[in-house]
């Protein structure tokens, strides 16, 4: 028996979210109680794999084959299912990110294991197995019971803190027998460089229609830069083509949960709020004192974002002595 956690890598490296997921899996295994095992697919140096031991993962299975460089949902699913079966894993956990969302449902079918996607914490009970997740894009919480013996969970981003718990790590190389052929052919890759990725960011600086025109985005980018933050925008802004669709945050765009979210010139339509309501702190700047964004904001300034931004940049530079 085991709790199996799929620890994705990005060009051979883990992210903070990987360690959050590892911490979550460790705690989940303690509660069951069961052993926790991590599975890594693709080439990751031993030194990097060993980092998982800081978060309580004592055993890592590494599938290193170069054939598995490309995410092929069918092949990855077969590999994870094969490892889960060998370990007789009772629970498999993945991150609720692009690849986790692609793999967990396939895994659920293959393993005949009920899936709850985007859970926000440890199960409320184990018999019956009940977990909590957000529904209606954050407008409500639901308790979900999984009826099957095996379970699959994806953990919502930024919903579990990293917990250090150092253990020795045993790394075992593994060659799957059931993987099959990779059919997904990647012809071209475009990677954002020098920018903080929106869904990973601790701080997000976002602009709405109140910014008036795309030429006014300079201060938003500058503020993001000095804070090491990602930039985002509201739907009208991406629909107008002022900013790329990857930045659209809200119900039908990206749903994010940073520590700090700045909303400049965003009125706070219910669909936008749905995408940001999990932020720990929200700062809103808007000329309309009755704008709904102030209902969800922790701190608010009723004023013109274009006037507030330069002053705020100066004040932050001063406070951080940049």
């Amino acid at each position, binding site marked *: 028996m085991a709790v199996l956690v799929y620890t994705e890598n*990005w060009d051979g490296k883990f992210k903070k979210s990987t360690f959050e997921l590892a911490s979550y899996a460790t705690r989940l295994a303690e509660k069951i109680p069961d052993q926790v095992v991590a599975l890594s697919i693709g080439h990751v140096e031993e030194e990097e794999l060993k980092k998982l031991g800081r978060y309580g993962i004592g055993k890592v299975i590494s599938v290193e084959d170069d054939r598995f460089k490309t995410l092929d*949902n*069918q092949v990855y*699913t077969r590999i994870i299912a094969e490892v889960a079966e060998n370990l007789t894993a009772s629970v498999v956990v993945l991150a609720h990110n*692009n690849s986790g*969302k*692609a*793999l*967990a*449902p*396939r895994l*659920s*079918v*293959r393993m*005949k294991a*009920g*899936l709850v*996607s*985007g859970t926000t914490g440890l199960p409320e009970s184990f018999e019956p197995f*009940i977990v909590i*997740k957000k*529904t*209606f894009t954050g407008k*409500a919480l*639901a*308790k*979900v019971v999984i*009826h*099957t013996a095996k379970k699959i969970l994806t953990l919502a981003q930024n919903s579990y803190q990293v917990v250090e718990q150092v253990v020795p790590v045993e790394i075992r190389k593994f060659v799957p027998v059931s993987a099959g052929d990779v*059919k*997904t*052919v*990647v*012809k*071209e890759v*475009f*990677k*954002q460089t020098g920018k903080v*990725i929106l869904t*990973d960011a601790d*701080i997000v600086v976002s602009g709405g229609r109140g910014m008036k025109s795309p030429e006014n985005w300079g201060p938003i980018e500058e503020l993001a830069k000095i804070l090491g933050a990602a930039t985002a925008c509201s739907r009208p802004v991406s629909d107008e083509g002022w900013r790329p669709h990857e930045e659209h945050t809200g*119900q039908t765009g990206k749903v994010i949960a940073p520590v*700090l979210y700045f909303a400049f010139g965003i009125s706070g*339509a*219910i*669909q936008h709020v749905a995408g940001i309501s999990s932020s*720990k*702190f929200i700062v809103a700047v808007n000329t309309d004192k009755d704008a709904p964004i102030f209902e*969800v904001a*922790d*701190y*608010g300034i*009723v*004023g013109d974002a274009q*006037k*507030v931004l330069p002053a*705020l940049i100066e*004040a*932050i530079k001063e*406070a951080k002595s940049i």
Partner: protein
Amino acid sequence: MKILVCLGNVPDTTTKIKFSGEGTKLDKTGVQWIINPWDELALTRAIELKESGQVPVEVISVLTVGGTDAEPTIRKALAIGADSGYRVDADPADSYQVAFQISEIARQEQFDLILCGIESSDYNGAATGSMLAEILDYPSLSAVSGIHPVNGHLEYTRDIDGGRETVTLDLPAVLIVQKGIAKEPRIPAMRGIMMARQKPLTVKEPGPSAGYTEMISFELPAPKPSCRKIDPDNVRELVNLLQNEAKVL
């Protein structure tokens, strides 16, 4: 090429969510139902592909799993430009049960390309499309933000964390699509609405399947404490609060 677009029937995104039965089910009073936003974009892209003639599209079918109250959603899709509709007459229980019901029709009809939205805006399972692919043993791509005809075949844009890839894949396949796949959803025109009445809408009995999971209760998140207002001429105060009260700077 035969395309299937799977449609979810969901409350309008502006709906103020309420629950009834002591928090066990959605209170449907006064709720306006819409096509799940990503599914609607998927349908729009399918119609664009057919109209462009750059790849041969013989038929676009739409399907939803739900009771008779879900039929307006199918009629709307037919009015927008789908050629035929299916409704599996079952109450959606969970993603698995829905995927299973879709798979029965997908097997019979042998679609080449199946499009599903990345998640539904109600229960946010983000699972039906990928589950369907696994049941059918088809390849799948998730987080697809572009479908491009190139020399008579299709290439896809897949979003990855902090970037995107151009990908090819053999058909039949399931694509799980998201924002960017089409610019804006189409609105049915009067002619489309008239024509939709003549288009076939087939009601199917559900196959034998129970869900793996069950939502047992709902609650609304705790309301936030009220917003602390800061004078626009005193942004230093905001920085001070963020540093020393919230401790996030």
